[in-house]
């Protein structure tokens, strides 16, 4: 009922533009516009000249390690910190000098920050009461919200009587009940155990789609970012290093930092020996040969670059595969059986260790590998990425 309108607008935009996401449309107006935001704490620059556009109905993840500035950026959106320089526009309105209690934004805190002296229902009702909603209205909307997070029966409990997962839902309900235009979530699933986290991830996406609220999520968990988000902004040292859809961030990292931060990766250092528009050859002493990559790069001749190769893209075999490019030899040093897949650490003659993962297709693997086996590693020419930075 409450959500019917946002869904309609979402559908309207989607059909009108034939399913091209908003961030890929040239003329689309961003819902949240961050312009050259910098935040300094004394000498320390927490956020360094970030510009970012986030569109309506997006679920945008700010992904980074601790101290990367992601939380500071989020707190500036909520209004708890004011930027040293730069502008934040929400739905076209400049947020400079707008106090937290006047912003069309709500936040779900990492610690949940539930009021311990109020019941679950009163926690959820808190924001509505401040708005001056009528008693009847408050009651109705709190009940709706608690039903949505499946806590309708626990309204009378105090927060300390709930489990971690239930508290997380209360926090979510409380932050959504005012129907904010923009919801900020600080490590929303961080305090949950792995299984609960996986379930809640999908629930969060469903709720976001149902209500049509724009979400900005801060997380250090790359898996969480990958499953949740429409786009990811990878942050490091106060800067957004790469902004892309999850698939692109994983498959086409633009720097060594992103490649290593998201998933695991093998990096081969090498020198560019052949630089063509459609392919490059890189001479790598670490890999023990020439690597062929089928995309062009812009670089100086003889520049030192890194070839990034995901472990699951590598094929491992006892016999020499019938391909001349991208085939190297090594010795299995370690094997880790992880149920759904097996991880091999293969030592190359150069001393470089290569990580290879193989899905366990069948119970009895066709080809058995064991320690000290001499193996060939090979991959397709479009599997690797050349990183110049």
């Amino acid at each position, binding site marked *: 009922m409450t959500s019917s309108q946002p869904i309609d607008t979402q559908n309207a935009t989607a059909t009108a533009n034939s399913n091209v996401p908003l961030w890929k449309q040239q003329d689309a107006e961003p819902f949240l516009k961050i312009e050259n935001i910098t935040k300094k704490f004394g000498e320390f620059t927490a956020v360094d000249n970030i510009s970012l556009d986030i569109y309506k109905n997006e679920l945008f993840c700010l992904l980074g390690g601790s101290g990367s500035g992601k939380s500071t950026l989020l707190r500036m959106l909520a*209004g708890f910190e004011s930027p040293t320089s730069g502008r934040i526009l929400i739905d076209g309105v400049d947020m400079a000098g707008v106090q937290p*209690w006047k912003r069309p934004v709500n936040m779900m805190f990492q610690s949940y*920050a539930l009021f311990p002296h109020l019941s679950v229902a009163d926690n959820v009702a*808190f*924001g509505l009461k401040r*708005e001056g909603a009528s008693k009847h209205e408050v009651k109705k909307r709190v009940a709706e919200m608690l039903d949505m997070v499946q806590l309708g029966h626990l309204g009378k409990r105090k927060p300390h009587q709930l489990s971690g997962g239930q508290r997380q839902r209360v926090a979510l309900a409380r932050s959504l009940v005012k129907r904010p235009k923009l919801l900020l979530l600080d490590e929303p699933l961080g305090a949950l155990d792995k299984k609960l986290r996986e379930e809640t991830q999908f629930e969060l996406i469903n709720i976001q789609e149902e209500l049509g609220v724009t979400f900005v999520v801060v997380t250090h968990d790359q898996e969480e970012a990958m499953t949740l988000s429409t786009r990811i902004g990878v942050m490091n040292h106060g800067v957004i290093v790469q902004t892309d859809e999850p698939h692109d961030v994983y498959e086409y990292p633009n720097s060594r930092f992103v490649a290593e931060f998201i998933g695991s990766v093998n990096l081969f250092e090498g020198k560019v020996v052949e630089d063509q528009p459609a392919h490059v050859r890189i001479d790598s002493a670490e890999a023990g040969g020439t690597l062929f990559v089928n995309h062009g790069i812009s670089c100086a001749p003889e520049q030192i670059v890194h070839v990034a190769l995901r472990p699951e893209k590598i094929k491992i075999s006892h016999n020499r595969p019938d391909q001349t490019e991208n085939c190297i030899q090594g010795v299995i040093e370690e094997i880790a059986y992880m149920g759904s897949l097996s991880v091999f650490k293969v030592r190359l003659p150069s001393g470089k260790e290569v990580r290879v993962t193989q899905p366990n297709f069948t119970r009895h693997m066709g080809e058995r590998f064991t320690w000290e086996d001499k193996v060939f590693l090979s991959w397709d020419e479009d599997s690797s990425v050349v990183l110049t930075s």
Partner: protein
Amino acid sequence: MSISTGSVWVDGSSSRMQRYNIFRRVNWGRFAVVAIPAFWLGIFFFIPFLVVFKISLSETAIAVPPYTPLLEWDLEEAYINLKISLGNYLYLLEDAFYLEAYLSSIKIAAISTFFTLLIAFPIAYLIARSDGSRRALLLALVILPFWTSFLLRVYAWMGFLKKNGIVNEFLLSLGIIDQPLVMLQTDFAVYLGIVYTYLPFMVLPLYSALEKMDMTLLEAAEDLGCRPAQSFFLITLPLAIPGIVAGCLLVFIPAVGEFVIPALLGGSDTLMIGRVLWDEFFLNRDWPMASAVAIVMLIVLVLPIMLIRNGQGKGEAI
């Protein structure tokens, strides 16, 4: 009764076992830890209380000690005489002076407690919000006056407040007043003395309550549309209630029975039960009456407070 119902459920061998275990499970270390303070309270609180209660049931006499014995016996004449006098308590009810003294004490203590709370709250809040070394320093400053004798500090206030004292001299020299203010020997001086003396007892429990509070709660309140003042009344204050209750009790109870401050700073018309007690003991040498005053004060003050605390404890447990 309970044994017979128990035997329905528990067969002989296991109930023997339980008895055996209970005997063995007495934790002597824990017993000793509890016994020491219990012993201390018994010797220095409970027994003196009984002695005072006993004296309150006797009558004045010109003797040493100056009251009639409760129990008299003569083995040769073969009599035991137990004489319980309720005259002191009846007199307390009859003479309006005592009721007035009680009410006046409670009034002075209540007003002082209120102002102590008003002053202590911002101090405690500041300490709870400051970080690390600064917090330690501020806490030390709160406790610092205890290094000096309480009596000495009250005398110091006399020096401040008297007619040619520091405050008057200062105000006169600035030309704010042309005549010295009468501050000493007024109720104002008593309030000032009590607030000053008991401030740390209010600050410390408030601090410990506020320090536990998660600051993100205030951010959450602001995020949900609260102005800072609103979030103070809706979040900070309710969460500080245990500290407020503890601090108010720590100030109110001793303030009611306060003797030194009204005696030194108050005027002759400052009526407090502590002074009445002193006068009964040392001027009238009426020990039984003084004891009765003390016992009634205990009943009037401590019983309701104990009941409140008890109720609160249950409320929090749920």
